């Protein structure tokens, strides 16, 4: 990967993705074997700037940096930081650049990470920008898909909030680099936004859209389920119209192929019934665990570029 920053999935070529995933597989094997990893970045400090809540992304970046021998500094909650005093993001990242060797940024506004990357010299990773992109999640999604089903000749169904779902936007864009058949299943009001649709069209992706999961479920290798994100809706009434629209339970999956892999970026609310958790279909906790080796690989590549 030649870039200094990772702000959007569209930056990633197939070779970039494969390089991260191959490196992640090495870390994964080392972590799984219980052997102690050499401290590759003992002097490195990663700055975590999360303007929105996070569990998995933040903790897995923290774990990844520590497993690489480095450490983290955490801006903490927005309420307890100078953001509360009205500090701009541009100022905040320029200050934090002096504390860390890289910045992981989550922000409620689309384009925040790209803007931040223009103000600093250290690598910036977009850990979610509003309803925009979440490219590091995409890398761990692709890792999980590659392990479970392979990335070529893949048929994937992506279900739920396609309009506001940043994991969906990044994943769909990245899959255009592979031989994937993409089926998008959502209520009419939550279809993919125009910008993602444009990218898929430009890439010549094989895409179909549906409003019913039954139309496509039997064909799928992977079912990627997303939460309808209440916090992104400008209007509560609009949210209520579509809340609970797609709920996956044992009955739903009667029509699925035996080898189907069910994924979810988590957190879930009621999209996947707990009864699925113990079946062979469920892969979402494994997916979350993959965040550590994949983010180790991403940090390794970005930090080594920057040395």
């Amino acid at each position: 990967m030649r870039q200094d920053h990772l702000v959007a999935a569209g930056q990633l070529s197939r070779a970039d993705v494969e390089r991260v995933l191959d490196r992640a597989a090495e870390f994964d094997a080392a972590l799984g074997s219980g052997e102690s990893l050499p401290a590759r970045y003992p002097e490195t400090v990663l700055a975590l700037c999360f303007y929105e809540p996070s569990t998995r992304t933040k903790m897995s970046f923290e774990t990844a940096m520590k497993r690489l021998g480095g450490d983290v500094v955490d801006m903490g909650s927005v309420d307890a930081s100078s953001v509360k005093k009205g500090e701009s993001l541009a100022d905040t990242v320029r200050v934090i650049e002096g504390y860390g060797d890289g910045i992981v940024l989550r922000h409620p506004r689309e384009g925040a990470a790209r803007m931040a990357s223009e103000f600093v010299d250290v690598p910036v990773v977009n850990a979610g920008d509003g309803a925009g992109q979440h490219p590091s999640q995409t890398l761990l999604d692709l890792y999980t898909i590659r392990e479970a089903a392979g990335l070529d000749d893949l048929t994937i169904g992506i279900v739920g909030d396609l309009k506001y779902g940043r994991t969906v936007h990044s994943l769909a864009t990245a899959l255009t680099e592979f031989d994937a058949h993409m089926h998008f299943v959502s209520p009419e009001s939550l279809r993919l936004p125009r910008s993602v649709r444009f990218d898929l069209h430009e890439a010549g992706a094989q895409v179909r859209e549906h409003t019913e999961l039954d139309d496509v479920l039997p064909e799928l290798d992977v079912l990627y389920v997303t939460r309808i994100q209440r916090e992104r809706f400008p209007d509560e009434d609009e949210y209520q119209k579509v809340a609970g629209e797609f709920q996956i339970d044992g009955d739903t999956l009667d029509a699925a192929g035996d080898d189907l892999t069910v994924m979810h970026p988590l957190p879930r609310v009621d999209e996947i019934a707990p009864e699925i958790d113990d079946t062979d279909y469920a892969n979402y906790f494994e997916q979350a665990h993959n965040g550590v080796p994949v983010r180790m690989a991403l940090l390794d590549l970005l930090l080594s570029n920057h040395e």
Partner: protein
Amino acid sequence: MSDHELRVSKIRDGTVLDHLPGGSALHVLALLGIDGSEGTGVSVAMNVPSDRMGTKDVVKVEERELSQAEVDVLSLIAPRATVNIVQEYAVIEKKRVERPESVAGVLACPNSSCITNADEPVTTRFDVLDDGLRCSYCEEIIREGIADHLDVG
């Protein structure tokens, strides 16, 4: 010169923008950052008959020669515009607008959640597509009503 173009008089030195879409002249002036405060002459003819366009607008800006980069921004709202640079009442150079690869600082992003609409020290920037514009920050695409998003001066 046709009678229609004589609605505004010849200028000695400056730039004549012709074949602007009817009704677009004020947007054109806004895009160019011309509001009359410079103290030099600006003539505007709006919705004059045109054989080629039905109606068109014409703008004459005195004592200012617009650069190619400046006129290229006009392609966003006046893709068929012609630009004549005038010295001593004579046209010394004709330019056509060409679509630039990107434009900065002339449009506001219509996405209210875009970082460029927060109180940040950042200039808007759009990549120019074949049939629209794309925000370089949030990736929002604008296809219709580009003039509605002008944010200049």
